[in-house]
């Protein structure tokens, strides 16, 4: 944009060349408008200049044209007239574009004010820690400048949208008379979607393990059930097989062998969970010891902080293993269940999570008690 402004010469000297020069400048202005946000001050400056110039040009053009006409009567009028018309058209279009751009800026400004107000309101209500479920979005405002975490939050938003789509697709598939082979595709897709979440979480854990451990991306009700950065694998099993545990003979009820396998899976899942929980307790103990080492003694606490930092690498390992356990559990469950049972199980799990999120929204928008 700077080059355009400096190339801007007073119109009187240029005469006939003025419109052509003018149009190349309009072209530049249009290109910068299509690019994202040029600095506003510069835009306004250019706009002011261009506005002045557009008025000048038309009059100048006419002046030049009529002046030339008088002098060289042999030259045809329509070429000049056409150039004048084109110039007017370009100026008009430019004014419209400017109007649209300014309108867009105004809207953005309003939206920004709205968001700031909402933020302040929520901050006052919930203190420093701002949780999820403020509006319909799933993302918690953390003010996090960690790019790995910002990327994760963005991806998670998309993940939830895709999840909701898959849940309704699955519902329709189960109510249709779809065959097992086709249904299996939905089941595999659903499982894969959860596995993608696990890989996303592992990457985010490497960026900021405390963020994952606190479940910051989840809604408040989901966080209540948090266990090492996610749901307990045993809970996942319980929810998924809930639809199969009917007393009366039902098409999708579990066979004897399946019942046995589920019992074994639940048990081994619980044992693995307990082992991981005990490991976590040990890590907490070791971390506390490292930080508490040499309290009330001379010297600074940097060595203790350094030792504690090393221990935090172990924490990432726990998140990785917990997600791995979730993945293994889901996979084993899909081996035990038939296609139809697995589809119902996936649907049950998806709806369960949707209800939890609904609970969080409802909770955060409940009417506040007056003091």
């Amino acid at each position: 944009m700077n080059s355009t402004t400096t190339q801007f010469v007073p119109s009187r000297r240029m005469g006939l060349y003025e419109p052509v020069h003018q149009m190349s400048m309009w072209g530049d202005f249009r290109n910068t408008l299509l690019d994202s946000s040029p600095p506003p001050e510069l835009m306004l400056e250019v706009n002011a200049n261009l506005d002045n110039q557009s008025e000048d040009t038309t009059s100048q053009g006419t002046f030049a044209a009529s002046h030339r006409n008088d002098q060289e009567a042999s030259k045809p009028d329509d070429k000049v007239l056409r150039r004048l018309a084109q110039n007017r058209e370009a100026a008009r279009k430019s004014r419209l574009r400017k109007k649209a751009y300014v309108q867009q800026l105004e809207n953005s400004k309003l939206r920004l004010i709205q968001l700031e107000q909402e933020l302040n309101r929520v901050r006052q209500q919930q203190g420093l820690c701002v949780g999820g479920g403020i509006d319909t979005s799933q993302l918690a405002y953390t003010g996090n400048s960690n790019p790995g975490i910002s990327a994760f939050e963005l991806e998670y938003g998309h993940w939830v949208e895709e999840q909701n789509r898959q849940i309704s697709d699955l519902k329709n598939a189960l109510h249709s008379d779809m065959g097992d082979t086709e249904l299996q595709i939905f089941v595999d897709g659903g499982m894969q979607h959860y596995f993608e979440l696990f890989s996303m979480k592992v990457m985010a854990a490497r960026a900021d393990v405390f963020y994952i451990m606190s479940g910051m991306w989840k809604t408040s009700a989901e966080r209540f059930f948090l266990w090492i950065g996610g749901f307990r694998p045993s809970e996942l099993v319980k929810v998924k097989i809930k639809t199969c545990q009917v007393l009366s003979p039902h098409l999708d009820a579990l066979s004897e062998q399946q019942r046995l396998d589920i019992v074994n899976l639940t048990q081994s899942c619980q044992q693995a969970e307990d082992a991981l929980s005990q490991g976590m307790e040990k890590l907490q103990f070791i971390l506390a010891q490292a930080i508490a080492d040499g309290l009330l003694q001379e010297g600074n606490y940097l060595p203790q902080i350094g030792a504690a930092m090393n221990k935090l690498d172990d924490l990432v390992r726990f998140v990785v293993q917990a997600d791995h356990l979730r993945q293994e559990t889901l996979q084993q469950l899909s081996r035990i269940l038939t296609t139809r049972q697995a589809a119902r199980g996936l649907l049950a799990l998806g709806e369960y999570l949707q209800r939890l999120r609904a609970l969080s929204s409802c909770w955060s928008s409940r009417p506040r008690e007056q003091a």
Partner: protein
Amino acid sequence: MEVAKGVRSAVRINGGVDQQRAVELDLESVCEKVSALVSGNAVVVFTISGCCMCHVVKQLLFGLGVGPTVVELDRDASGGPILALLNRLAAGGGGGKAVPAVFVGGKFLGGIETVMACHINGSLVPLLKNAGALWL
């Protein structure tokens, strides 16, 4: 001894380039020592005392009723060479850490991830029973 060969060949495959003959001889002796340990005990777990994942594996095995032989590498005289050996075994598996390392029935099973996976898919308990670590 089949077991000793198993450990040695696993190390050779995963070991990469070993330039010095001296180092290889040292490796041989460590292999022998480890092989002796794992073939003499149904379940052997190599750990490091501060490592929390090692604690997880131990708790899992204790919870199943297994009494594994635990070798704490930082408290053992030949801990260093054994750790190097385990590093090579782990490198073969792709990205896993060297400890905890679990040997069942004289064979290398894997780290925490493998043990968990085997337990969930139901193959761990039969493996333990076969090795004589469980009797029920």
